């Protein structure tokens, strides 16, 4: 590097936003790039796949039950003769949508509660007791009550599919934010006493600004871990809900549900469990690597190295 280019950079630098920096760093993270690529492929696959592979996932061909992979059925069929590939494609739409939105909801809730509780001492007590309450609530009866109270209303307002979707995202979000909140709070408690926060406080920076500028970026890594685990958790929880009859109607396949229904057929038609299992694992892995990359890219100490 010559002095000239350095000087040029110095001139250019103010124009480069934080997000350009982040992107430049993110680009260097191989795992993150691969993760983004796979994730994009999965998302595009489930969005456009059903348009290209037009077999109806609910179409039953009773003459082709439990068949292995073939040209007509690339992943074989299930025990009543539905095409697995079509179901995996369609199931991905619901699973991904539920996984991502529920994760975001629980992340936002968890981070919000965690930061408030950690930063403002007066809120710590009440918010943490609320967290205790949610941790202690038995989830299954809670679900039964929520579904009993809201299913009909939501079905009437949004139709059976969207109504149940909202309900499930809400349920998963509302019952999985507590761990994030506890962890974020713990980190914030420690951060609050660190020199740069004390310094910011001493020059009169308002609390909101300290939180967004100094605290939040420093609690990103546990949040990113929670996010990755959250996606997997949401996808699996959804399958447990469907299994209990509290989820989507049985003619809306989801990955978790396909995996669950296929488990007994593991020795008969292994494709039934391998593909949905792989889809869930790949999604979780790619989200994890994206999370890793994002965390590194957002960390000013690592950035630029």
């Amino acid at each position: 590097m010559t002095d000239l280019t350095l000087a040029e950079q110095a001139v250019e630098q103010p124009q480069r936003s934080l997000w350009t920096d982040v992107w430049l760093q993110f680009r260097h993270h191989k795992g993150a790039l691969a993760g983004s690529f796979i994730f994009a492929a999965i998302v595009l696959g489930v969005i456009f796949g059903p348009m290209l592979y037009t077999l109806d996932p609910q179409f039953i061909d009773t003459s082709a039950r439990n068949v292995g992979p073939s040209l007509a059925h690339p992943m074989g069929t299930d025990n009543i003769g539905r095409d697995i590939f079509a179901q995996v494609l369609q199931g991905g739409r619901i699973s991904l949508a539920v996984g991502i939105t529920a994760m975001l909801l629980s992340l936002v809730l968890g981070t919000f509660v965690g930061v408030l509780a950690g930063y403002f001492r007066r809120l710590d007590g009440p918010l943490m007791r609320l967290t205790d309450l949610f941790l202690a609530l038995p989830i299954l009866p809670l679900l039964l009550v929520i579904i009993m109270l809201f299913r009909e209303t939501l079905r009437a307002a949004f139709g059976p599919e969207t109504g149940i979707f909202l309900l499930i995202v809400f349920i998963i979000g509302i019952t999985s934010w507590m761990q994030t909140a506890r962890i974020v709070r713990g980190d914030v408690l420690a951060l609050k006493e660190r020199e740069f926060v004390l310094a910011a406080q001493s020059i009169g920076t308002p609390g909101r600004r300290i939180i967004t500028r100094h605290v939040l970026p420093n609690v990103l890594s546990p949040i990113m871990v929670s996010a990755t685990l959250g996606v997997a958790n949401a996808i699996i929880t959804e399958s447990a809900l469907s299994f209990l009859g509290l989820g989507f109607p049985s003619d809306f396949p989801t990955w978790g549900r396909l995996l669950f229904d296929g488990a007994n057929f593991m020795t008969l038609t292994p494709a039934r469990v391998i593909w949905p299992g792989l889809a869930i694992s790949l999604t979780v892995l790619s989200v994890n690597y994206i999370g890793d990359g994002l965390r590194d890219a957002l960390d000013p100490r690592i950035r630029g190295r």
Partner: protein
Amino acid sequence: MLNFTLRRLLMAIPTLIVISFIIFALLDLAPNDPTGDLPLTIPPEVREQIRLSLGLGEPFHIRYLKWLQQFMVNEPLNLLEQWTGWSIGDSENRLRITSWATRSPVVDLIAQRLPQTLWVVGMSYVVGILIAIPIGVISAYKQYSWFDQFGTFFSMIGFSVPTFFTGLVLILVFSVNLGWLPMIYDTRLEVRDLGSFWAQVKQMIMPVTVLALFNAAQLSRFMRASMLDNLSQDYVRTARAKGMKERVVLLVHVLRNSLIPVVTVIALGIPTIFSGAIITEQIFRVNGLGQLLIIGIQGADIPLVQTLTFIFAILIVLFNLIADVAYGILDPRIRYD
């Protein structure tokens, strides 16, 4: 610190009472019914009689207060009597919390289930922690090495594949094909000699593996992230610059600081040992507290579910407090007062 702990303990009592009320209201609202799993050949009038005999005819608040009295007064007195052999008051007619499905005292059921749950779920938790911490530490220290990549891959698979799946795979391989391990847990087994100890080990291997894999996957991710955060801190550079041995830097300074958020995760997880592992217990028929809870929920056995979840709530509040105290000890900068 002591002051803080005492204050929190005092705060815990009203919190727990509110929690117990909310749980009770929730269970009461839930639409399942204790006669729901009876055969349809039993006519509706008889079902109504059964409901009345369970005390469902009484209004909600009476039932709640009765339960509260039984839980807070009768059961502790009863335990005290059992331990000391004293007889306090009218112990013959003191009502205990009785499960609707089995018509037997809930506390006895819990005591019966506790051993296998502690053995299996507790053990898997310990194993999980023991695996996760080294994996997390090494993964972070050698970030993006093959070990890290493999560890990440493995733990993500471990977390994203549900236990009903891993459990079944293990059964198919080790019980059905190889015939090495029993697929059904014998809760009657008592460890008396080497032979029965070996039998106990054999029947624990699969459920413990399944659960430990799941626990370790989650914990190692948090451990790794926390280590990474600390490794890039200034104090690490300072310590190294002072010429401290790398081992000391890593294990004393970085590890101690990195454990702080992980302690939360671990402490939050300990009460879940008590709630058992519903799916794994079902698959291997460990029939511990998790199975007791799920049967209670499905059968709308309100006294059983209420008592179990409430004990669970107490543990949660308690372990959150322990986590907070542990923070204070691990990180002297944190001040609660």
